[in-house]
């Protein structure tokens, strides 16, 4: 009876398990008519050598996605960009590995006080289920109308930049040239008037107006990048041939791409959500490349024959914020000299080497609160606060009493009646930050400042009772930005929506506001550089370092260039090729 029952169980499992092979049919438009990923995956060779011969690349993906329409709040995910967004939805400009916006879909583009003008490349076409459809100004207009639409607003990530354009006011010359005008009336916070300085980031992904005709923009592309007939659509070097949730994506070369013809015929993204599993898959040759979350477990891939380990400083700004508001438990943080002393007492280079070990590579302390070290305008304004405990002690001696007479001497300072004791907040479970806190606690203790641990879950740290509620003293966390200096405006300006430190300098606010409206790139950079120089004198925040962005790939796979922006290593995917 037991064996019969087991046999029945096997049959039941077999019957239920066949559900994985059901073909997805095109029920409603803009949902894929393609076969599930597993069927496409059927023909992918098992070994790297086999894939080389077949001109296929397998890329390990760290996260699954909720959809490919990254303009929507639900689906604004980095891996949605990586697994098809960047390859199939190209736009006016693309950010290269230096963070510079370079022309992509357009042959020329300019901005002035009246608006922005684009001239689309004459050979720019959509691939739509095998048909060639020209890219026209109507696609740009459609994109603007959908993102600026008040009806879509609640579902969108935001209207930043697009809100400055008036979708009802545009001119076009033929099908390939269009000018959009800045909004001049009906202005509001979400739809401001005037120029948007970071205009090159606009239309970095353009939607196909013809292919999406009749579709609800807030419901498209849940499991494909396709038109209203379910067929894949693309203006980039690849189109999304199929995607199956929980498994991966297959991209195929777009024969109509306007740029260099893609050298790799097919790129498969296979899900490895566990980083350790991803590492083993890379070691074992199950994947050809990965761009994983940086961590110590990547050490297993360093120095491995046949694998190239590359890492660059990412747009991941690990930093400290000091609470200068009345919500802080200690008013001493309102004094610049206390913040300066804390900065001087922290050995950032030592922390980097300790927490990252052999993976530290070229990671250096970051000395600018607005520009990343890989960006041309970067200046080491904060380098004046490099580790110098003797100097820190001298500052504290001048304002306080009762502390150590020499570095490591013991005792805690009392300044204007307040003890030099602060809460140190970080996201619980983050081992790197936990180790950082332990190191900093020891270093600051040596100069007479004490810390109490305040490790909290991420949803508390970033929730209304955490940092946004100004319920902290010193917090260590990271900001991830696009690399544009305007991203920092809300964090550093007086009463900024993301200004949780309470820092307020009218000069800095004015400079950043001016920079945000400045269309001259040289002057814009000068405005933001000046703002950073001022901030460095009072240390409202203290940059720590940029977390590295790794790219690990088979050495035979050429043409891959790491990129810290949201385009990732896929910015030049058409240039990848096997050595053979």
């Amino acid at each position, binding site marked *: 009876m037991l064996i019969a029952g087991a046999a029945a169980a096997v049959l039941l499992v077999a019957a239920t*398990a066949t559900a994985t092979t059901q073909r997805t049919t095109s029920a409603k438009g803009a949902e894929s008519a393609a076969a599930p990923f*597993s069927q496409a995956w059927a023909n992918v060779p098992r070994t790297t050598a086999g894939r080389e011969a077949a001109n296929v690349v397998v890329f390990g993906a760290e996260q699954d996605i909720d959809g490919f329409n990254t303009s929507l*709040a639900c689906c604004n995910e980095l891996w949605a960009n990586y697994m098809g967004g960047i390859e199939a939805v190209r736009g006016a400009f693309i950010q290269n590995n230096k963070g510079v916006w370079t022309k992509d879909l357009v042959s020329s583009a300019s901005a002035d006080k009246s608006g922005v003008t684009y001239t689309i490349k004459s050979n720019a076409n959509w691939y739509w289920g095998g048909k060639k459809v020209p890219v026209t100004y109507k696609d740009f207009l459609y994109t603007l109308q959908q993102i600026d639409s008040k009806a879509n*607003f609640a579902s969108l990530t935001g209207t930043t930049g697009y809100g400055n354009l008036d979708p009802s006011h545009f001119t076009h010359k033929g099908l390939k040239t269009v000018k959009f005008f800045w909004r001049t009336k009906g202005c509001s916070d979400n739809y401001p008037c005037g120029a948007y300085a970071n205009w090159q980031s606009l239309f970095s992904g353009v939607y196909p107006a013809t292919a999406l005709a009749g579709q609800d923009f807030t419901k498209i592309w849940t499991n494909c990048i396709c038109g209203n007939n379910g067929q894949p659509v693309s203006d980039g070097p690849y189109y999304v041939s199929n995607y199956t949730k*929980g498994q991966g994506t297959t991209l195929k070369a777009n024969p109509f791409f306007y740029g260099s013809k893609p050298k790799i015929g097919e790129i498969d993204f296979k899900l490895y959500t566990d980083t*350790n599993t991803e590492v083993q898959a890379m070691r*074992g040759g199950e994947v050809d490349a990965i761009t994983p979350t940086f961590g110590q477990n990547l050490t297993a891939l360093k120095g491995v024959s046949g694998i190239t380990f590359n890492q660059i400083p990412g747009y991941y700004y690990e930093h400290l914020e000091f609470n200068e508001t009345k919500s802080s438990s200690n008013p001493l943080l309102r004094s610049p000299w206390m913040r300066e002393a804390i900065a001087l007492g922290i050995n950032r280079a030592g922390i980097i080497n300790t927490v990252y070990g052999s993976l530290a590579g070229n990671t250096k302390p970051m000395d600018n609160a607005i520009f990343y070290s890989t960006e041309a305008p970067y200046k080491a304004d904060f380098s004046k606060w490099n580790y110098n405990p003797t100097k820190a002690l001298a500052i504290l001696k001048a304002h306080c009493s009762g502390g150590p007479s020499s570095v490591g001497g013991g005792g805690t300072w009392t300044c204007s009646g307040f003890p030099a004791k602060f809460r140190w907040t970080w996201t619980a479970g983050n081992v790197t930050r936990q180790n950082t806190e332990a190191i900093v606690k020891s270093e600051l203790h040596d100069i007479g400042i004490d810390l109490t641990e305040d490790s909290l879950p991420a949803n508390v740290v970033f929730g209304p009772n955490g940092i946004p509620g100004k319920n902290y003293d010193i917090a260590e966390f990271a900001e991830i930005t696009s690399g544009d200096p305007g991203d920092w405006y809300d964090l550093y300006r007086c009463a900024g929506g993301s200004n949780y430190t309470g820092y307020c300098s009218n000069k800095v606010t004015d400079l950043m506001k001016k920079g945000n409206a400045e269309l001259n790139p040289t002057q814009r950079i000068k405005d933001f550089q000046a703002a950073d120089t001022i901030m460095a004198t009072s240390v409202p925040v203290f940059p720590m370092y940029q977390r590295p962005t790794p790219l690990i790939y088979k050495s035979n796979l050429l043409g891959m260039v790491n990129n810290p922006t949201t385009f990732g290593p896929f910015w030049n995917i058409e240039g990848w090729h096997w050595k053979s």
Partner: protein
Amino acid sequence: MLTYIARRILYSIPVLVASSFLCFTFVALGGDPAGNLRQNPKVTPQTIAAYENHFHLHDPLLTRYWFWIKDLFGHKLGTSLVTGQPLWPDFARVIPHTLQVLGLAELIALILGVAVGIFSAIRQYSVFDYVFTSLSFVGYAMPTFWLALLLQIVFVDIYLKWHVRIFYTSGLNTRGNATWSLDRLQHIALPVVTLAVISFAVYSRYMRASMLDVINTDYVRTARAKGVSERRVIMRHVFRNALIPVATVMALNFGALLSGAIITETVFTLDGMGYYFIQKLGQSDVYAVMAYLMLTAVAVIVFNLLADIVYGYLDPRIRYD
């Protein structure tokens, strides 16, 4: 028996309601479905506010629970709080994968566990008995995630050294789409072994202990005295009666298997229920998490009922009113 089953099902309904409310309370209070939106600097406060209003995130708990119940029954397991898409297609996709892995693991563990348990009992205190007793304790003590990672490393190292791919370390398929192909079995072998090890340890110990209890009973001694062959004594008299507690444990073990599947599927990146649950929990997608919990609660109740039915069948002395 039918009356008994009907009564058990009716008793299960308030249990389900109470457990669903408790689970909803813990999950809803433990996470912020808008958390990921808040952390995205591009998402405007207005979008977050609209999202919270749409899903009643600021309403009292009982109100939110009511809206979830409405969604659950109105949309076949409900809709996702994160994507707004129906949940049933996701579950229809992942359930067969989990059932395949769990079914195979349970089958292997049961066959091996029962066989080893029988032989250990018959050859009590032999070398075989000592070896498998030790292995059982090691297997039972081994953390699932540790074993999973270890197996991954071992088979990757085998591939690197001898260039022979025996098993894959992740995913469901590399080649072909058949569910019972060699390729699929190569992919799920390691997760199946991971889950089977602990269950095997449990079943072999229970079977051994149960066999030893029955072997020394009067009716077994009587059967031997009557001249019944030893084989017939073991398989006809001892085995069937010793199987009763194992059948009960097997049904009750289902819940433990599901929890083990969460870790195993996450480590091996198998697109199953456990993996899906972890992804949704990380996103604080309350409705998806609740759908998973309700499905598993129903499954545990059903398996408990099955355990009682099987128990009644195996032991004719048991009769349910």
